[in-house]
């Protein structure tokens, strides 16, 4: 390894190759291993971390790794859930950190933003807002995520603008990727200097290769996403419902008419989305307490003044017909960040959620279950039965519910997003259940709850997310996975790109 390190240093400069114990420790875990403090998802250390400064350097490192048969991994913001950027095994690979590559440029005519992998979602959002553009898909978990990596890993669902604009993947316009061979591939809007901002083609689209591939097909060095003009006006509406089913029926009606640019139905204790835009975690905690018994729909509108006014009025009419009640202003005030999101600017949120459910910073929390559903009916079913399953586990484990820590309780929360699948405003969405637990002794219980949800998910029918090391794509979807492996073989015959993450480790 010493020799390899020397060679790496020659490529990127001695300062930009690190092998010390802290580096290895830092790059061996992410939010997920971290939440469970290593108990649910183990950490794997890289041998070294390399900070390339350019695509050329990325290329050189790849060429070296191929020759020396060393696995390569990549990390963008490093905030991904489900260990997508952690080596597949302890002490086998080199990890790329791209934070030296932070360039962001906006092309006004083609309406695309080009970002290098080290640029954060927050930086991109700030720059675009300055230029009066918006980027509608959600920026992912936290402001520190890289702009394009979120969409390789998670879905980039914008809870408040999703159903018109789709997800991150729907907004990708083109990319530049270094393949395992060291060759550079430029697709879609980046195929040529003047390529239009169109991701599809010519012929079969390669722009989508990196999504959810966790660096398995190649290392992306630049990516372009489409932008939207800033709307004249943005508005939101928050309506409470006595039952989940009345909320869902109402939502179907709204979706059918395609009013609003995005909407979310939330079950009791609807903290998830409340906190996504609360100004402070304490404000969010307050909200959680206030919403323990209610169901909620939140939606955003954008466009001309007349459009926002008309759609808002029309939606109030529809929702009230299904026993919805428009929420009081003080509550709405907490939720205002969503409007910025609808306009296309990031509002930073998820960390606040963690802040809340971690309460006093001595607990962990874990997403027990979550996934993208394709219809509201299935979401409703999942949410309803999921809550019951959760309550049963709680009843079986009274110490969980009666724990003195105020936040050590499951906030089973349902964020459903009508969205995103291609921006077709047909129902689709995700449900997230989060368990908060104070100490590791709760892990078995968390495991029990997780198992219940997993079984339910399969029964109701949901395609696996394929996030990180979600092995369900390998085991449950052979008709898909065998094709993915064919592509993998073509793109990376030696299999040294991120083995053990999106593709299994070869033994």
């Amino acid at each position, binding site marked *: 390894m010493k020799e390899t390190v020397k060679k790496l240093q020659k490529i990127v400069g001695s*300062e930009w190759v*690190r092998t*010390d*114990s*802290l*580096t290895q*420790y*830092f*790059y061996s875990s*992410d*939010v997920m291993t*971290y*939440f469970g*403090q290593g108990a649910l998802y183990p950490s794997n250390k890289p041998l070294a*971390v390399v*900070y390339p400064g350019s695509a050329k350097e990325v290329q050189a490192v790849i060429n070296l790794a191929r020759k020396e048969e060393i696995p390569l991994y990549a990390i963008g*913001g*490093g*905030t991904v859930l489900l260990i997508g950027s952690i080596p597949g095994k302890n002490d086998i690979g080199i990890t790329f*950190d791209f*934070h*030296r590559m*932070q*360039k*962001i440029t906006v092309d006004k005519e083609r309406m695309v933003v080009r970002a290098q992998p080290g*640029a*954060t979602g*927050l*930086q*991109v959002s*700030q*720059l675009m*807002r*300055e230029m009066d553009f918006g980027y509608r898909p959600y920026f992912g*978990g*936290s*402001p*520190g*995520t890289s702009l394009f990596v979120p969409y390789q890993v998670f879905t980039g669902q914008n809870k408040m603008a999703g159903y018109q604009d789709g997800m991150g993947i729907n907004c990708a316009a083109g990319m530049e990727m270094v393949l395992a061979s060291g060759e550079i591939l430029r697709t879609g809007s980046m195929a040529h200097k003047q390529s239009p901002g169109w991701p599809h083609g010519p012929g079969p689209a390669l722009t989508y290769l990196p999504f959810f591939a966790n660096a398995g097909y190649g290392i992306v060095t630049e990516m372009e996403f489409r932008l939207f003009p800033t709307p004249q006006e943005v508005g939101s509406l928050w309506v409470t419902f006595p039952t989940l089913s009345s909320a869902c029926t109402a939502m179907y009606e709204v979706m059918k008419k395609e009013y609003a640019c995005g909407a979310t139905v939330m079950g009791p204790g609807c903290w998830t989305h409340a906190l996504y835009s609360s*100004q*402070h*975690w304490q404000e969010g905690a307050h909200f959680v307490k206030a919403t323990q018994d209610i169901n909620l729909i939140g939606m955003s509108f954008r466009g001309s003044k007349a459009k926002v006014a008309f759609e808002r009025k029309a939606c109030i009419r529809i929702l009230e017909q299904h026993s919805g009640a428009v929420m009081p202003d003080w509550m709405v005030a907490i939720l205002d960040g969503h409007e*910025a999101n609808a306009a296309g*600017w990031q509002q*930073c949120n*998820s*960390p*606040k959620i*963690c*802040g809340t459910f*971690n309460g*006093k*910073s*001595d607990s*962990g929390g874990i997403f027990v279950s979550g996934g993208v559903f394709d219809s509201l009916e299935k979401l409703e079913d999942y949410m309803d039965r999921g809550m019951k399953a959760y309550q049963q586990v709680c009843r079986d484990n009274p110490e969980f519910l009666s724990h003195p820590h105020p936040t050590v309780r499951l906030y089973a929360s349902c964020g459903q997003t009508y969205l995103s699948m291609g921006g077709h405003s047909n129902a689709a969405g995700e449900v997230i259940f989060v368990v908060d637990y104070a100490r590791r002794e709760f892990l078995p219980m968390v495991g029990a709850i997780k198992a219940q949800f997993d079984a339910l998910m399969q029964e109701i029918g949901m395609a696996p997310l394929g996030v990180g090391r979600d092995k369900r794509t390998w085991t449950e979807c052979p008709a898909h996975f065998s094709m993915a492996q064919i592509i993998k073989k073509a793109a990376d015959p030696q299999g040294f790109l991120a083995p053990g993450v999106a593709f299994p480790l070869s033994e």
Partner: protein
Amino acid sequence: MTKQELLDKALSCNRCGTCRGVTQDAVPNADFSTQCPSGMTLFGEYEPAGLMYIARGIAQGDLQWNKDLAKVLYSCTLCGYCDDLCSRGYRHTPAVTILEELRKIVPQELKPRSLQKAAAAAEVPKQHKLAVLKNYGVIDVSGSGTADTILFADTTLIANSSKLSEIGFLIKTSGRKLGCFIDEPLPPVEQALINGGQQDVLERCVARIDRRLKQKGIKKVVCYNPESLSVLKRFSRSGVPFVSITQLYAEMLKKKSPKKLKLSAVTYQDPCHLGRYAQEYSAPRQVIAGLGLTLKEMWRSRNNSLCCGAGGGMLAVNPQLAKRYAANRWEEVSATGAKTLITACPYCNANFRQGKPKDSKIMDLTSLMAQAYGYTGKEAGK
């Protein structure tokens, strides 16, 4: 702090990366949208989350102290940005508390010697030139003299006769009665003791200061050095208010007009210890306005101000790195179009001199005030 306490605090950081960036809604230039001096320069474990990982690893026994850990620890300028940002709404990682704790528990042999020297200097007053102040009618409260308000003499001021002279001149010109412990100075405490991990010493010194303030019935303490202001504010139990000298200047400008300065537009560096630590953002700006200067704000200002790079003892430990940190700030200075950078902190001033572009000037706020009231420098000898 026990290991468990340290771990609980460190676990609060979930590595969300928010503190990588500034939190304004929009930025005109992505080059100025990152914030942590060490993180934006060296990335990875040099970012706040990396430092939190040191704490986590040490507390859990996953990491052992070594040179590499120390290198990362002492690349942080303790600018306080991450802590401030995190508590603004994201989480509530007490980053500064954790970082200070790490500097305490790091094994002696890994502590940079220069930091220890600086800490020692902040503990005991050295040969001083405070008598200069007497020339300007400042009352020595260490003897029989009394005064409600005193000037605090820190390590950067205590032997600096020209700066003392400027300040003395301004006090005299303002017509205010001010005291100072002149013949028997107070311990010239400042951040250096924390940088060196000697918070216990600092606390002892501040207790001594508190006793003497009480003995003398002091009602208010004016600090020239923001690093003293911030530690006194944090650790004093005296109940006496500690204020920045810039407040004195702001009041003075209201009462007595200065002469017009010939300066084109200026910009201002919010020192970390004056701003984020002591929450003093307005007085320096009032002074700049009162002097009739046009202020062109940098993008990262007030609580989003980017550290000059000198903090945490960096100027002593690794001046080259401090200079690298300052470079990005100089770019932002240039981007404002201002040719003069005003600072209100002796360390910022010193560090910004490193790597100063040829066509730019750097001015200490006190010197600027003195100039505006006709101070020529000849007064110093009197």
